[in-house]
């Protein structure tokens, strides 16, 4: 009697030696043979991969018993896959692995370099400058902003701290401030606001001016040659278009160019100086809205076409944000006492710290916006902080041309643009629709004793300011754009310009039709015939007269 098969009626009846858990082959020797056959089958190498099931199962079970994951039966397939995958990793390190340089390692090197102090020089300078250093206390500022939930991680703040220290040792800087961070598509910008020591202005400015003058002279020569050639040919009517006069940028150290800005993509990378901003760039930046890519030399493709590349656009946005959102508690800054300056156009533009400043309690700073003032001049519609009449300048420059024509075609007189004066309180700031320009909150409602007053700008989302006692600071974290509840609609292209005045010699007339031509001919012939008759009559009359006279 062999073991019962499942379809036979005796199957399953428990009989000694025949329970379902007994091996099917009762004989011991044939049992051993069966085991060896089974093992030989398991040890068969696969023709495809060279592995064999026996080793694979052994490895898998070893791994499971070593690691003891929970619910191993649910992930058994993945464990099997992992064991197979591990076969393909060569345990012997080849040279290729060693040479794999991840970009992360390079970045780590740069960051580590921040922490190394330059030997020799570093030690000497420390002794001299411990008293006064333009280096701002970035960590202290970060602490106050963190109370409001604003700011970068402590690691990054510390890296920026060290990067600013590097900046100061390289350039002759009087004051330095961490302005903020602007996010971009490929990389971000970390921005430092800096003021040079007096008299240490860069010599690069002079070089740039010389280069432009040479270019202009070269252009002038080329233009004269062209004009000579053209006079010989028949010229089309000249256009009467005169481009509006270029408004010159403000001097370094005043107005929108009061501070110099340095940017870098990551702490550890070298700082790059941004060029000063021109009014045309600010006027254009107001009309466009583009993301920053993170590369300073990227072109800004927009309409109206932006006069510059991304470095200029970045500088223009920084200027607008600073003008709109840099604030301080009232009384911290005061005007220098010089009465002669009051009559000057454009108001005062210099201020100094007030030594008698009494900080107001935090509750007052939060409740009323008139306890804060702007300490950066606002930018006028023209693009400058101090209004400049462009017409006067253009008259001086263009003396060569006919002055009579100039004065006759003078455009309507430009009115002087006036903006809010320096140190205006925030309560004068206009809101957008029904949203106030600033949102004020204390940093914590639970512990009012040590709270700081936090202001967030609603016109430039990302601009924050805090004040706590004598400490205050402004910062910007964002994408660099102004808030507008309406969708951005780009400027329409200007209407097509009239090229030349239309006159009779230029306007086309329709050619006469055949009938008109024939009618004209007939009329002409009639007229000729009529004239001949008249002449004949006159001749006849004259002949008669002559005959009479004789």
């Amino acid at each position, binding site marked *: 009697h062999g073991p019962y098969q499942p379809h036979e009626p005796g199957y399953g009846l428990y009989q000694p030696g025949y329970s379902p858990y007994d091996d099917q082959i009762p004989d011991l020797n044939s049992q051993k043979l069966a085991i060896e056959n089974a093992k030989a089958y398991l040890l068969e190498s696969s023709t495809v991969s060279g592995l064999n099931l026996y080793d694979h199962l052994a490895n898998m079970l070893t791994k499971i018993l070593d690691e003891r994951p929970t619910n191993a039966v649910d992930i058994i397939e993945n464990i099997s896959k992992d064991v197979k995958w591990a076969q393909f990793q060569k345990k012997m390190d080849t040279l290729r692995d060693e040479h794999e340089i991840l*970009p992360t390692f390079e970045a780590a090197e740069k960051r580590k370099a921040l922490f190394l102090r330059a030997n020799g020089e570093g030690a000497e300078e420390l002794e001299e400058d411990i008293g006064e250093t333009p280096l701002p206390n970035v960590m202290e500022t970060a602490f106050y902003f963190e109370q409001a939930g604003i*700011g*970068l*991680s402590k690691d990054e703040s510390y890296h920026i701290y060290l990067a600013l220290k590097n900046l100061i040792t390289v350039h002759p800087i009087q004051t330095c401030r961490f302005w903020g961070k602007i996010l971009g598509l490929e*990389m971000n910008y970390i921005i430092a606001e800096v003021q040079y020591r007096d008299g240490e202005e860069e010599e690069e400015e002079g070089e740039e001016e010389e280069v432009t003058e040479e270019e202009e002279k070269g252009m002038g020569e080329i233009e004269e040659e062209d004009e000579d050639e053209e006079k010989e040919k028949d010229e089309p009517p000249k256009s009467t278009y005169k481009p509006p006069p270029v408004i010159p940028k403000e001097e370094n150290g005043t107005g929108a160019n009061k501070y110099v800005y340095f940017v870098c993509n990551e702490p550890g990378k070298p700082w790059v100086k941004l060029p000063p901003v021109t009014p045309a760039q600010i006027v254009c930046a107001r009309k466009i809205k583009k993301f920053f890519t993170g590369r300073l030399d990227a072109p800004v493709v927009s309409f109206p076409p932006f006069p510059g590349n991304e470095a200029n656009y970045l500088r223009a946005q920084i200027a607008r944000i600073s003008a709109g959102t840099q604030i301080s508690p009232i009384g911290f800054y005061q005007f220098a006492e010089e009465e002669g300056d009051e009559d000057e156009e454009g108001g005062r533009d210099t201020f100094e710290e007030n030594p008698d400043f009494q900080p107001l309690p935090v509750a007052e700073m939060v409740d009323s916006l008139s306890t804060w003032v702007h300490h950066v001049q606002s930018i006028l519609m023209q693009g400058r902080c101090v209004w400049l009449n462009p017409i006067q300048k253009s008259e001086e420059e263009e003396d060569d041309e006919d002055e009579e024509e100039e004065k006759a075609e003078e455009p309507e007189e430009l009115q002087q643009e006036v903006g809010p004066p320096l140190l205006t309180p925030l309560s004068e700031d206009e809101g957008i629709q029904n949203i106030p320009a600033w949102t004020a909150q204390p940093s*914590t*409602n639970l512990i009012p004793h040590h709270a700081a007053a936090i202001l967030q700008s609603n016109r430039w989302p990302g601009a924050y300011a805090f004040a706590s006692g004598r400490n205050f600071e402004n910062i910007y*974290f964002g*994408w660099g754009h102004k808030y507008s509840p309406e969708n951005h609609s780009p400027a329409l292209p200007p209407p097509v310009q009239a090229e030349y005045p239309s006159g009779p010699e230029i306007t086309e007339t329709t050619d006469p039709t055949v009938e008109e031509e024939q009618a004209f001919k007939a009329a002409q012939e009639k007229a000729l015939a009529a004239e001949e008759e008249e002449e004949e009559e006159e001749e006849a009359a004259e002949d008669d007269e002559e005959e009479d006279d004789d």
Partner: protein
Amino acid sequence: MEAASLPAGLELVAGGGAGLSPEKRAVLGSSLLLLQRDYRFERVWFWGCIQGVRGAYYIAEGLGPDRAAPRSRLYSLNCVEWSLLPPATKEMVAQAEQLKGRFQGDPSFEYENPEINAEDAEGLIEDSKELLIKEEARLVATIEQIDRAVGIIPRGAFVKTPLGSVHENRNFEGLSLTEAKKLSSYFHFTEPVNLKNKTLLEKADLDPSTDFLDSLEHDVPQGSWTVQLEKGGTVVVLRSLLWLGLTFYHVPMTKQYGYVYFGTGEKNLDLPFML
């Protein structure tokens, strides 16, 4: 992001300048745990914070056994007391899309719906309730829109069982650095829309247990995600340009990932002009 990984996650997301104060972080540690206990969630995610003009909303989401099921959403004004939000309906979303401007910060604030045609006005004069939309409804609709549009997870982080429910993949070890920089390694964690439009050839390469969601590759407009390596290249941070303020982080070759929203809750409709 997972409530348990909140402290570490906030450090990694802080590159955008937005985060939480120490006070909020401290209280969230305990209040999210209590949420899990009270509502019997299996997982609690801290979704983020929507800044209103006068106050901010802090949002948390709770997940049940099937991670892809509709999630329960809760909001709080101070991170201590949480209120359950009603589930989002299509009408809510449609109405909220017409609203513009900032959130006010007061959940009972009512918006007047200004965009009504003359024809609609006649029909709606009878139901004057429809003209007013509460800020709470707008909040629900905005969160739903953001989750549906830009809530993302790395590929392989979740796995679909043959029964249809979705679980975390315990074998997920993290994306490699090269994979992490590609947009195709991230999926929208919502009902897939484009999956059935793929060609048969593409579908043959997909693994139905892990590739059951839409990837970010074909998002419109192209370029609406920025992928950056921060902290010296150790963290991959994705930021959405369509909903400014949504940040996703992942540390390659580890299990750490998550997304969080810190922003004003407004869609960036100027995106095509800005790219």
